[in-house]
C-alpha cells in the first residue's frame, strides 16, 4: 500500500516496458499492423494523460491491457476491419504456393496459429489473447474485460474448441508428431 502511495510514474520507462504488450494486443485483435501501431500510439498517449490516476506499476499494466483491448475492439467496430477469414482451402493454397506444411518447423506453425486466431470471433479472440499472450487467469481476464468469469471461461473453451477444429486438418501432423 505504502509502495502504491509513493509510486512515482516514469512515463518513458512505462512506454519502454509496455509498448510490446500494447502493440501485440492491438495487432492480434485487429490483424492489421498499421492500425495496431496507430492504436498502440494512442493507448500510450492516453496513458500519459491518465498517469495521475494510476496508483502503482501493476495498476498501470492492468490499465494498459484494459485500454488496449477496448480501443482495439472499438477500432474493429468503427473501421469494420475484417479479420482474415482463412479457411482450409486457403491453407492448402498457402501450402502449395510456399511449401509451408510438412517440412516447416515452429515458425510456420506459429504463423498458422496466428491466422487461425484472427479468424475467431472477437469475444473468443480477446480471451485467448489475454490467456495465452498475457498469461492471465480467467479471473484476471474477467476483471480486464469487465465480464463475468463464467462468460470468460465459456469463451475460452469455445475459442479453444474452434481453434482445434480449424487446426484439426493442418496441425494433425504437428500435434501427433510432437
Amino acid at each position, binding site marked *: 500500500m505504502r509502495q502504491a502511495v509513493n509510486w512515482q510514474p516514469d*512515463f*518513458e520507462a512505462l*512506454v*519502454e516496458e509496455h*509498448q*510490446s*504488450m*500494447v*502493440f*501485440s494486443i492491438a*495487432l*492480434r485483435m485487429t490483424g492489421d*499492423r498499421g492500425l495496431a*501501431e496507430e492504436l*498502440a*500510439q494512442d493507448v*500510450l*498517449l492516453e496513458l*500519459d494523460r491518465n498517469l495521475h490516476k494510476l496508483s502503482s506499476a501493476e495498476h498501470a499494466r492492468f490499465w494498459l491491457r484494459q485500454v488496449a483491448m477496448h480501443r482495439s475492439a472499438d477500432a474493429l467496430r468503427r473501421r469494420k476491419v475484417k479479420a482474415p477469414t482463412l479457411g482450409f482451402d486457403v491453407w492448402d493454397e498457402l501450402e502449395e504456393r510456399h511449401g509451408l506444411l510438412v517440412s516447416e518447423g*515452429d515458425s510456420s*506453425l*506459429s504463423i498458422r*496459429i*496466428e491466422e487461425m*486466431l484472427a479468424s475467431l470471433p472477437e469475444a473468443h479472440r480477446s480471451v*485467448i*489473447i489475454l490467456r*495465452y*499472450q498475457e*498469461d492471465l487467469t480467467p479471473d484476471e481476464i474477467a476483471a480486464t474485460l469487465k465480464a463475468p468469469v463464467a462468460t470468460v471461461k465459456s469463451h475460452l473453451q469455445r475459442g*479453444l474448441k474452434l*481453434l*482445434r477444429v480449424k*487446426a484439426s486438418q493442418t*496441425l494433425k501432423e*504437428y*500435434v501427433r508428431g*510432437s
Partner: protein
Amino acid sequence: MFVDHDDLKDEWKDAREQADLERRLRHAMQRKPAPVGLKQRVLATARERRQHRHGRIWIFQRLAATAVLAAAFGGFAAYRQHEEHEKEVQRGEEATRQVLTALRITNKTLDRVSTRLAENSR
C-alpha cells in the same frame, strides 16, 4: 465395473491434444516486438501535447488575470461613482437645510418688523 478402454484412450488423446495445442498457443503467442521508433514517436507527441497544454493553460491564466483586473477596476470605478453621487446628495440636502434655516430666520425677522410697525402705528 466395466471400463471402456477405447473411451479412455480417446479421452486421454483428447486431453493430450488439448494440452499440446495450449502449449503451442503459448509459444506462438509470445509478445511481438514493438515497431521501430514507436517509443520515440510516443514520447515526442506526448512532449508536444504537454507543451501545447501548458501554452493553453498560460493563455487561460492571462485571460483570467485580465478579467480579474478589469473586474477590480470596474468595481472600483463604480464604487467611486456611487460615493460621488452619495456626497452630492448629502451636499444637496445640506444646502436645502441651510436655505430652510435662512427662510426661517427671514420669516422671524419679518414677523418682528411687522410687530414693531404695528406698535408704532398704534
